[in-house]
């Protein structure tokens, strides 16, 4: 865990302690379990977003993809009687395909990621609404898929704590993502391309493939999150389902130390960022803060977090320059060379 993650953890603990002090029911098992369930769902697509942000891209269509794939998933298993295992595979495949299209448009055609995924945001939202003719897609009363429900929205009692399966899924995904990002060759490539695509290319990295792979991973994880969320709400109004979720994802990634310029960010940070956002949502309800202030509270805390981080970075930098890094000789020579 790096320093950035540690300070984020401290922030979470401070916020948590304050909330628990004002309303002790914050620490109530049921409440923690519910909050963790949210962390599970939001964390998965935040990790998805982090992959794209790390390579220096952005994915704005997360919310719309969650709506479209959620609608399709429910439609497949409820109205078309597709076996849920097959449906799950189909939805994940669709997510991967969406990612592949985005990645290809960004690398091969050279359209800016913001534009590609903004178009995606509009297209998938429209597609979802058209598909259901704006009606809500949902399980009827009493419709039941016991196995699927247990797997996606269920909870398992561990030492008396009802652990939501979504958070178990997040844990597994986060561990794999952590290993991939921080320990594997592919992870190195992701960071290298995000930091300096040109230098990565000169080191023999096929940067185009790396970028496409990041979007594909993002698409697949988002699809998985879409299924979990669909199974949680059990009903999807395509016009509003998942709207703004890309911003939750970007906020979590930024809180978690991702730079929108690319090349930075840690999985632990993204998960902690998600935890903070969900604790904030929880505290709005628990402390009886008017619901309308929800987003304002979130924005304020993110801003404070980022400001504090900037302050710490600058202080650290000042400390290092005071110590004096030996680089004077090189700088002098390069001035001489450029004075031709």
């Amino acid at each position: 865990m790096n320093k950035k993650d540690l300070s984020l953890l401290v922030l979470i603990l401070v916020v948590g302690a304050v909330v628990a002090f004002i309303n002790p029911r914050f620490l109530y098992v049921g409440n923690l379990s519910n909050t963790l369930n949210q962390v599970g769902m939001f964390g998965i697509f935040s990790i998805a977003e982090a992959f794209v942000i790390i390579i220096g891209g952005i994915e704005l269509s997360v919310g719309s993809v969650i709506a479209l794939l959620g609608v399709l998933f429910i439609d497949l298993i409820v109205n078309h009687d597709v076996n849920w295992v097959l449906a799950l595979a189909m939805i994940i495949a669709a997510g991967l395909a969406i990612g592949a299209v985005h990645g290809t448009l960004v690398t091969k055609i050279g359209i800016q990621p913001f534009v590609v995924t903004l178009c995606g945001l509009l297209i998938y939202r429209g597609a979802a609404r058209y598909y259901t003719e704006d009606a809500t897609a949902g399980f009827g009363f009493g419709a039941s898929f016991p196995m699927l429900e247990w797997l996606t929205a269920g909870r398992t009692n561990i030492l008396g704590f009802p652990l939501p399966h979504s958070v178990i899924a997040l844990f597994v995904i986060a561990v794999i993502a952590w290993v991939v990002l921080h320990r594997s060759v592919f992870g190195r490539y992701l960071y290298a391309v995000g930091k300096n695509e040109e230098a990565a290319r000169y080191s023999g990295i096929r940067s185009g493939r790396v970028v496409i792979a990041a979007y594909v991973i993002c698409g697949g994880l988002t699809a998985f999150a879409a299924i979990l969320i669909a199974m949680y709400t059990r009903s999807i109004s395509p016009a509003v389902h998942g709207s703004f979720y890309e911003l939750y994802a970007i906020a979590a990634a930024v809180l978690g130390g991702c730079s929108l310029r690319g090349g930075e960010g840690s999985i632990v940070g993204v998960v902690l960022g998600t935890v903070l956002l969900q604790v904030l949502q929880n505290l709005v309800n628990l402390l009886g803060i008017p619901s309308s202030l929800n987003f304002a509270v979130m924005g304020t805390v993110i801003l404070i977090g980022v400001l504090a981080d900037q302050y710490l970075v600058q202080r650290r930098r000042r400390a290092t320059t005071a110590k004096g890094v030996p680089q004077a000789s090189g700088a002098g020579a390069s001035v001489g060379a450029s004075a031709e």
Partner: protein
Amino acid sequence: MSEPFLELVDISKNYPGVVALDHVDLSVSRGEVIALIGENGAGKSTLMRVLGGVVEPSGGLLRVDGVERSSLTVAEAIKAGIAFVHQELNLFDNLDVAGNVFIGREPVYGGPLRLIDRKQLHARVRPLLERLGADFGPDAPLAELSLAQHQLVEIMKALSLDARLVIMDEPTSSLTLTETDRLMRVIAALKADGVSVIFITHRLNEVVQCADRAVVLRDGHVVGSLRRDELAPAAMIRLMIGRDLKSLYVPPAAPPGASVLDIDGAVTSTYPDRAVSLSVRRGEILGLAGLVGSGRTELARAIFGVDPLQAGAIRLDGEAIRVASPRAAIDHGIYLIPEDRKGCGLLLDVSIAENISLPDLASYLRFFLVNTARETANARTQRERLKIRAPDVGTTVGSLSGGNQQKVVLAKWLSMRPKVLIFDEPTRGVDVGAKQEIYDMLRRLTDAGVAILMISSDMEEVIGVSDRIAVMHEGAISGFLDRSQFSEHNVLQLAVGHAVE
């Protein structure tokens, strides 16, 4: 010729450890065309920056219309009628010609709305276009004009500021022959209007063609001034060199072997009608000299697979290979140490160890994961071997000096198995001590059987390090030199497109 309106007296400029200008005198009269020549690093650009007000001299004085001052600011230079046509043009290619010429000084109407008066704007630009004989209108979008036309726009910008002196820094380096001819005519037209021109160039026949006077700089001194009737390439080259090179040369342990890398009729997109052929032999350092813009970097990029080769073939150990990407080149054992170290060579805020392992991560695998212990160990070995001065291999590369950064780039490739190493300006921005260490490393590599192609604009380096020199001129090889033929004179002759006597 009238009295000089601009005089530089005893101008010096010191950078830490480098004397860029050493007591330079120069005067400019009305309607005079002065060519400023000298090798790379002689101080030509610094001198012009002093005139343009960009650089403040460390000593000496400037006399403008008889008024003495110790330095100029950019605004004062413009007011004094000195205009700069930069090597890299400062134009907006999203505006039209007129918009560029009057950028920041647009005629306006509409009071506080400050709307641009397009009619007046165009009316003001039109006479300038006529004066220079331009073949485009004031409303031509800049993006659609050629580089030569861009230069004309820059010159118009200068004239619109009532320039008395136009300084051009290597104006013809990227122009075609016809375009160069046109520029020469523009210079003549300026002269006829009483506007003075100073131009920096490496093309000596242009000097003969249009200069009234050539001033030769070497190591920050004015080493000579040639009048119109004395202008001849041989005389100029003699003045430009005139120094003894320190001998750095260490001969190879064994005579070079068979050729490893053969380039056969390679064509790059910069010079689509020129082809390059050369071979680099096992255990030899082939120096690739030439002027900036002669197509050397483009050739290196094409061999390394960064840019596609337009035509021609690359053979490695006699077998034709296809290099479609840097990955392919690396897989063949052809590595490039690029000129733009910070942009292309390194990840600046990543550690030394991770920079070194980047191109070869596959060999650090344990299961699917990077074996960081092995990575660190290898980086430490390379640090010892190349004497990289850093507290640890976990140090971020950005905090290292230029020389140590270059060693990290080199270490990347040395931990793999190089067959061919291409260096593009291996010691640019590198301090003297590290320079020598890098040269030693080059020799050790060739003695171990590596073939090295070294692009360099540093004459001392080319002559002192190479076993053989190829010289490029305008996208083609203008000649090869063996050690017995090595001399600055010969390299320069070939670099400006003349044959060696």
